[in-house]
């Protein structure tokens, strides 16, 4: 009791000291305002130059290969959930978007000023009509709704975001490049792509090809297999990092993974599990991951090296809702750390 009390006193003192330092800093900053203003002016000038360089109308080739001319980006409807985080980072706020499909981490998820077009299972096109967009960024879960989106906003430029021919990493880069062109954020796009490449290189350097990896999808108390070629969740990292699959069997591409007997997982003896936990996205408590409980609780998997060394990487809880370049960079960072730890 006394100990905790003393600790809290120390903590209080620490906070007070920190506050003092901070306030000192801010007042010091105030005196340098002239210099800051100047640099702001420079920034403004750069921005002006950038927007002048790509003033609307802009003609781009979208992911489906169509030439689209965008008259203005005054009102943007976005449905592809892989673009939410990027656009949020760039400050391109949509007027309509399926907020239902957004990660709770995204500040837009609770933003009532963005009209919610609902989930792909139950889209609400009235909101698109109300938003009267000039540009529609459509794809992924909404890919089958492209026609309806266009009908709801006949004058809008429809940018399709689907291209099955590209590998996931090629796609991620092409997508960010395209978004950069559409919203005049080429420099930001280039920086983001650089960041992605660096993350890939770092993770690759940390990985030892002798380590066999298996992708898993966990959901509703079941452990499923995510195949290394095109399975949901894990496959992109198999491609990017040349991971050695513990079991190279062709499976389905669907979002649930393949039903596989727990024996087959155990028999392939993986050194590392790369797990997409579908339940984590919906459970409010971000601390506990049902996937870890499920995998560690399994008697059949107890002898597998991945479990014995706890070489299990569970993707971020909202990965299932984002699957964007930021999520990739996040996972790559996590993998790099995990690979280094278990080398």
């Amino acid at each position, binding site marked *: 009791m006394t100990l905790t009390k003393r600790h809290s006193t120390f903590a209080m003192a620490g906070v007070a000291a920190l506050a003092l330092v901070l306030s000192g800093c801010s007042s010091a900053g105030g005196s340098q305002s002239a210099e800051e203003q100047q640099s702001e002016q420079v920034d403004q000038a750069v921005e002006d130059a950038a927007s002048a360089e790509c003033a609307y109308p802009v003609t781009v080739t979208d992911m489906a290969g169509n030439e689209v001319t965008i008259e203005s980006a005054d009102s943007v409807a976005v449905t592809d959930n892989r673009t939410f985080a990027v656009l949020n980072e760039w400050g391109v706020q949509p007027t309509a978007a399926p907020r239902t499909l957004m990660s709770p981490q995204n500040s837009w998820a609770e933003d009532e000023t963005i009209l919610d077009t609902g989930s792909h299972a139950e889209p609400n096109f009235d909101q698109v009509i109300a938003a009267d967009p000039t540009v529609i960024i459509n794809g992924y879960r909404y890919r089958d709704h492209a026609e309806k989106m266009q009908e709801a906003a006949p004058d809008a430029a429809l940018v399709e975001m689907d291209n099955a021919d590209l590998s996931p990493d090629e796609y991620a880069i092409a997508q960010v490049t395209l978004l950069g062109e559409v919203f005049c954020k080429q420099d930001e796009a280039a920086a983001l792509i650089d960041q992605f490449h660096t993350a890939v290189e770092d993770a690759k350097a940390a990985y030892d090809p002798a380590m066999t990896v298996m992708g898993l999808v966990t959901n509703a108390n*079941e452990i499923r297999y995510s195949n290394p070629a095109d399975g949901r969740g894990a496959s992109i990292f198999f491609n990017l990092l040349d991971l050695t699959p513990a*079991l190279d069997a062709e499976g389905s591409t669907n979002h*649930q993974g393949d039903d596989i007997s727990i024996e087959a997982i*155990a028999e392939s003896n993986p050194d590392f599990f790369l797990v997409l936990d*579908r339940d984590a996205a*919906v459970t409010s408590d971000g601390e506990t991951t049902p996937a870890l409980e499920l995998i560690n609780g399994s008697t*059949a998997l107890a002898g597998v090296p991945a479990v014995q060394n706890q070489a299990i990487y569970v993707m971020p809880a909202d990965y299932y809702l984002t699957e964007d370049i930021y999520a990739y960079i996040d996972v790559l960072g996590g993998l790099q750390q995990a690979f280094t730890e278990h080398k």
Partner: protein
Amino acid sequence: MATIAESPTRVTNVTAGRVTRRYSAQQSPLRRYGPALLATVFTVALLGLSVFTGVADITDTAGGGSDFLWITRIPRTVALVLSGASMAMAGLVMQLLTQNRFVEPTTVGTTEWAGLGLLLVYVFFPMSGLLTKMGAAIVFGFVGTMIFFAFLQKVKLKSSLIVPIVGMMFGAVVSAISTFIAIRFNLLQTLGAWFAGRFTGIEVGRYEPLWIVLIVCALVVVLADRFTCAGLGKDVATNVGLNYERVVLLGVGLVSITTGVVTVVVGMLPFLGLIVPNLVSMVRGDNLRTNIPWVFLTGIWVVTICDLIGRTIIAPFEVPVSLVLGAVGSVVFVVMLLRTRRTNVG
């Protein structure tokens, strides 16, 4: 043939179960024990096959493959036995209580109600254990089935086909509510995953709750005569001194426990309770007391065969047993419907 034998067996069965057995005792031992012996051999062979089917080599004692015998194979086989026997039994009990051959937990909505209970636990207490989920599934299954029974008593339905149709509609409404809630809470795929019956993840530590249904099965065997009486209708049952309402309540309770436990541990096993009791009564008539072992055995056979198909056709992957059962079951269902039209059974 079975049709003609049906009605006399039913009437005498109430008091004369013993007489039938004495009569059969006069037959030659081979005729008396032959089928039972064959069935036992067949069951043992099937379960043996189930134990030896899988990815790991369980004869390999050196490499640790044999560990899987107790970790996955035996548990999986036990799970097949318990869920197959109990769901077939649940179908049988429901068919007696409703006096309708097309009624079973998946055609009356019991499973859908159990699923709704499960879903609500998932939404409000996502971190709760398997027991809470099971409890909710059982309670919801019970309430839902009682609502259906109350409806049946209010509206006297003459046609035997209308009852399951009403039941399926009832189930569809409940499942629509579940789907709505699931969409709202982003649980649609979780709901689907829970519902698909599969034995894929069964291993030590995951199947144990299924032992509960063993107790339920034992109770049904003990109470077989009462359910048979209730199966003759409320008037007859009351005449022979049975508290009809209590028997119905007990029957629905036992069916709900079975359905709840099996739905949570394994998932939905469609049509099982429908196919099995009908197959058995086509061959043997309608004496519950002597039929019940056959219902148990046939239930085990059907589930085991379906699961063996499911785990071999696309190995190392598996097809959920509910998918195989659904395909087989719907064919049997249609055949039965056509047969009913022709001979006016039921």
